[in-house]
C-alpha cells in the first residue's frame, strides 16, 4: 500500500518549492521585456536616461534572475526525485517539452544574460540591444515550453496508454504542442508576468518620486510601466477568460469547484460573487449571484448547461467502473501479451484506466472493489471547493483591479500628472505585493483544482509518488524551507539596498571615486590576449 504521509509531504514540498520558484519567474519575464523596451528607446533616441534606466532595472533583474535559476533546477530534478512513478508513467510525453525548454529557451536566456551585464562596453549599441531582446525572448520561450508540459497535465491530449510498456506514450506530438489549454495558459501566464514586472517598476518609481530622487528616470519608467501594464492587464483578463472557457471543456470539475456549484444550474448559469459554505462545509447556505454571467464565462452560450459537482461525481462512478474493467484487462495483458481478447477489452476501456487507479488508495486488487469503495473513490474526484472558490475570486478581483490601476495612471501620465499626488504615489507603492498574490492564487487554482489528479483523468497524484521514506521527506522539506527562507530574506535585503543606492551610471562615466559600496574593484579588462579564445 502507498504511504499517504510520504505522498502528503511530497505534495507540500512540490507546492512550496514551485510557488517559491514562481516568485521570481514572473518578475524575470516581465522585467526582461520592459528592459528590452527601454533599451530600444535608448538606441532609437540616444538619450542617456534610458540606458541608465535599463541598467538600473537590470541590476534588480539580475538578483531576481539568480534566485530563479537557483530554484528552477530544483523543479526539474524533483519530478524524478519525489514523483518517480509519474516520471516513468508520463515521461515519454512530459519529458520532451522540458528538454526542449532547455534546448530552445533556457540556453538562450542563460548564455546571453552574461553579455547583458558584461557586454555594454564590448558590443555595439545595437549589438547589446539584440542581446537584451534575446534574453527576453529566452524567458518567454521558457514559459511556453513549461506551459506546454503543464497544459498536458491539465488536458492530456496526443497520447495513449501502452499496456506493454506500462506508460503513456506520444501518439500525436503536434496535438501536445497545440493543446488549446497550453496555448491559453501560456498567454495568460506571460501576460501576468508582464503585469508583475510593470507593477514592480511602477511601485519602485513611485517611491523615487515621493522621495524626489531620480525623478527623470522614475517618470520615464512610469510611462513605460503604465502603458505596458495596461495592455498586459487587459490581456491577462481577456485571456484568463479564455483559460476559463477551455477548462470547461476538459475540467468541468475544476470549474464546478471554483464556482462552488454543487448542482447543475439550468442554462444560462448565474455567477456567484459571494457565498457562505453550508454547515457541513459543502453546498453554500447563502450566496449573492448575478444571473447569466456564469454561463457566459464558462460556456460562451446561453443554452449550454454547466454541470454541478454532484452530477460530476455520479459520472465519475461510471468511469471508475469502466476503469476497473480496463485494469483487469491490463492485468491479463501483462500476464500474457498475446491475449487478444484482453487487448480488445482494454482498447475499449483504456481511457478510464486512471479512474480505476483511484481505487488503489483503498485496495490492491482494483477489480474487486466494493460499491462503497467506488463511491468513496468517486467522492475523491472533488477538489477542495472553498479554497478554490475564494482564491479564484481573489485572482479575478486583482485582475480587474490592475486594469483600473494602470488605466488611471495611463491617463495621469498622458496629462503629465505623475508626481502631483503624493498620497496616491504612496498608495501605488504599497500595492507592490499584489501581482504575486494574484499569480500564486492562479497557480493554486490550476494545480489544487486538478486534484486528485496529477495528470487529469490519467494518473492520480497519490499513485505517482516515489517510494521514499518519511525521514527522507522530513530532511528535504526542512532543508528547502530553511534555505529558501534565508535566501529570500537576503534577496529582499539586497534589493532594498540597490533601490536605496539608486541608479549607478559609473560604467561609462569617468572615475567619480569609490563611494558606493557595491561598486566594482576588479573587472574584465580590455582584451589583452586576443589570441585567446577561451
Amino acid at each position, binding site marked *: 500500500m502507498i504511504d499517504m504521509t510520504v505522498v502528503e509531504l511530497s505534495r507540500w514540498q512540490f507546492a512550496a518549492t514551485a510557488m517559491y520558484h514562481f516568485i521570481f519567474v514572473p518578475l524575470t519575464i516581465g522585467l526582461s521585456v520592459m528592459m528590452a523596451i527601454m533599451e530600444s528607446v535608448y538606441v532609437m533616441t540616444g538619450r542617456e536616461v534610458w540606458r541608465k534606466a535599463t541598467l538600473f532595472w537590470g541590476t534588480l533583474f*539580475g538578483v531576481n534572475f539568480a534566485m530563479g*535559476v*537557483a*530554484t*528552477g*533546477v*530544483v523543479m*526539474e530534478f524533483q*519530478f*524524478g*526525485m*519525489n514523483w*518517480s512513478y509519474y*516520471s*516513468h508513467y508520463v*515521461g515519454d510525453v512530459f*519529458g*520532451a517539452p522540458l*528538454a*526542449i525548454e*532547455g*534546448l530552445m529557451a533556457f540556453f*538562450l536566456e*542563460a*548564455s546571453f*544574460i*552574461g553579455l547583458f*551585464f*558584461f*557586454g555594454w*562596453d*564590448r558590443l555595439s549599441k545595437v549589438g547589446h540591444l539584440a542581446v537584451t531582446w534575446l534574453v527576453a525572448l529566452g524567458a518567454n520561450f521558457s514559459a511556453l515550453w513549461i506551459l506546454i508540459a503543464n497544459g498536458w497535465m491539465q488536458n492530456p491530449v496526443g497520447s495513449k496508454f501502452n499496456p*506493454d*510498456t*506500462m*506508460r503513456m*506514450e*506520444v501518439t500525436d506530438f503536434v496535438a501536445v504542442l497545440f493543446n488549446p489549454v497550453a496555448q491559453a495558459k501560456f498567454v495568460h501566464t506571460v501576460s501576468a508576468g508582464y503585469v508583475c514586472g510593470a507593477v514592480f517598476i511602477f511601485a519602485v518609481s513611485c517611491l523615487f518620486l515621493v522621495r524626489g530622487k531620480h525623478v527623470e528616470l522614475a517618470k520615464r519608467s512610469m510611462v513605460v510601466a503604465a502603458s505596458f501594464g495596461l495592455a498586459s492587464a487587459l490581456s491577462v483578463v481577456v485571456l484568463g477568460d479564455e483559460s476559463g472557457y477551455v477548462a470547461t471543456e476538459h475540467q468541468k470539475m475544476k470549474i464546478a469547484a471554483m464556482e462552488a456549484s454543487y448542482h447543475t444550474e439550468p442554462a444560462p448559469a448565474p455567477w456567484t460573487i459571494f457565498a457562505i459554505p453550508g454547515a457541513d462545509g459543502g453546498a453554500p447556505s447563502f450566496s449573492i449571484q448575478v444571473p447569466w454571467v456564469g454561463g457566459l464565462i464558462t460556456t460562451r452560450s446561453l443554452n449550454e448547461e454547466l454541470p454541478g459537482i454532484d452530477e460530476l461525481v455520479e459520472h465519475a462512478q461510471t468511469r471508475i467502473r469502466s476503469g476497473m474493467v480496463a485494469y483487469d484487462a491490463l492485468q491479463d495483458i501483462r500476464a500474457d501479451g498475446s491475449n487478444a481478447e484482453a487487448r480488445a477489452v482494454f482498447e475499449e476501456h483504456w481511457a478510464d484506466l486512471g479512474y480505476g487507479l483511484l481505487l488503489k488508495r483503498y485496495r490492491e486488487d482494483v477489480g474487486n472493489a466494493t460499491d462503497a469503495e467506488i463511491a468513496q473513490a468517486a467522492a475523491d474526484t472533488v477538489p477542495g471547493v472553498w479554497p478554490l472558490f475564494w482564491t479564484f475570486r481573489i485572482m479575478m478581483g486583482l485582475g480587474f483591479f490592475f486594469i483600473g490601476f494602470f488605466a488611471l495612471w495611463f491617463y495621469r501620465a498622458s496629462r503629465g500628472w505623475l508626481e502631483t499626488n503624493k498620497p496616491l504615489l504612496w498608495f501605488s507603492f504599497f500595492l507592490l505585493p499584489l501581482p504575486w498574490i494574484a499569480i500564486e492564487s492562479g497557480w493554486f487554482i490550476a494545480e489544487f483544482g486538478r486534484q486528485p489528479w496529477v495528470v487529469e483523468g490519467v494518473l492520480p497524484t497519490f499513485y505517482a509518488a*516515489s*517510494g521514499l521514506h518519511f525521514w527522507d521527506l522530513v*530532511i528535504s522539506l526542512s*532543508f528547502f524551507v530553511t*534555505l529558501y527562507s534565508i535566501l529570500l530574506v537576503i*534577496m529582499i535585503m*539586497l534589493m532594498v539596498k540597490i533601490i536605496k543606492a539608486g541608479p*549607478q551610471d559609473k*560604467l561609462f562615466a569617468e*572615475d567619480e571615486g569609490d563611494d*558606493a559600496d*557595491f561598486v566594482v*574593484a*576588479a*573587472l*574584465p*579588462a580590455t*582584451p589583452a*590576449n586576443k589570441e*585567446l*579564445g*577561451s
Partner: protein
Amino acid sequence: MSTIPLDYETLRLIWWLLLGILLTGFAIMGGRDLGVGALLPFAARTDAERRVLLNVVGPTWEGNQVWLILGGGAIFAAFPPLYAVSFSGFYLAMIVILLALILRPVGFKFRSKIKDDRWRATWDWVLFVGGFVPALIFGVAVGNVLLGAPFHLDDTMRAFYTGNFFMLLTPFALLCGLVSLGMIVTQGAAVIAGRTTGPLAERARTYGSLAGIVTILLFALAGVWIAFGIDGYAITSAVDGNAAINPLGKSVTLTRGGWLANYELYPWMIAGPVLGFAGLAGAVIGLQARLRLVTLLASSVAIAGIVATAGLSLFPFLLPSSTVPEASLTLWDASSSHLTLFIMLLVTVFFLPIILLYTAFVFRVMRGTVSTQSLEKNPNAY
C-alpha cells in the same frame, strides 16, 4: 511505427551517444566554473584576487550550467525509467547536489554586492563548497553506477530502492569521486591560468599540475580496481534493440573485471581512457610550458576521455541493479518510445548547433585576461 525513417534500435544508440555528449558538455563547460570554485580559496588569497576569479567565469557560468539542465531533461525525455529510478534512489545525494546548485548562483550574485569582510568570506566559502561538492559527488554517482544500485522494479514498473545515502560512500565510489574532482580542478586551473596573470596564474599552474598528476594516478588506480576489484555486468539473453521497453525481460550475469569486456569486443573503445590519460598529461605539460590554449584544450579532452571511459565501459547498461541484476536498466530497455526519440532527435539536431554557435560568440566577446589592475565600474560585476 513505419513512418519513422530511423529504426528504434538506431535511435536508442543515437540517444545514448547524445546523452554522453550532453553530460560531457556539462563536465567540460560546467567543470570550468566548478573547478574555479573549488580552487577559489587556494588560488586567490585577497578579496581583489577572488573577484578576479569570479569575474573570469562570471559572465559565462550561467550558460555553462544549462548543460546540466539539458542533461537532466534529456534523461527525462529519452530514458524516463533511468530518470525515475536514479533521481529517486539517490534522493539525499541529489539534495546535497541541489544545495550546491542553489547556493552557487546566489553566491555569484550576492557576494560582491556588499563590502564587508565577513559577508564576502562567507560567500567565498559557499562558492568553494558549491564547486567542490558537485565535482566530487558527480564522480561518486558514476562510481555507484559502475557498482550497481540496490533497486528493483515491480510488474507495474514502479521502482523500489533499498539502499541509503551512506551506502553510496564506498571506497571505490569515493575513488571515482576523486577522479572527477581531480579532472575538474585541472580544468579550473587551466581556465585561471588562461585568463589571469601574475601570482594568480602562477598558483593555478602549481595546483593544476598537481591535480593533473594526481588524477592520472587515480584514474589508473580506478582502472586497476575495475579490472580486479569489482564486478561488471553483462546481458546473457538475446537483445532485441527494436522491442518495446521491458527492463525485466532479460538475464544478466556478473563477472570480476566484466566492465573491461567491451574493450576486447570493440578495441577502438580504448580511445576513451587513452584520451583521458593523454589529455591530463597534456594539461600538465601545457601548464608548465605556459601554453594557455593547449592547456585548456588538453584538459577538456581529458574530461571527454574520462566521461567516455565510464560510458563505454558500462555500455549497454545505464544503471545496473546490484540486488536484482535482471532489473538493470540498459539503453535497449529503458528508453522513450520510438516516436519520442525521433522527435527529440530532430529538435536536438536543429538546436544544438545553434547553441554551440552562440556559446562560441559569447566566449569570443568575453575573451581576454582579467586582472586586479583593470578596474572598471559595473554595478553587476561579481
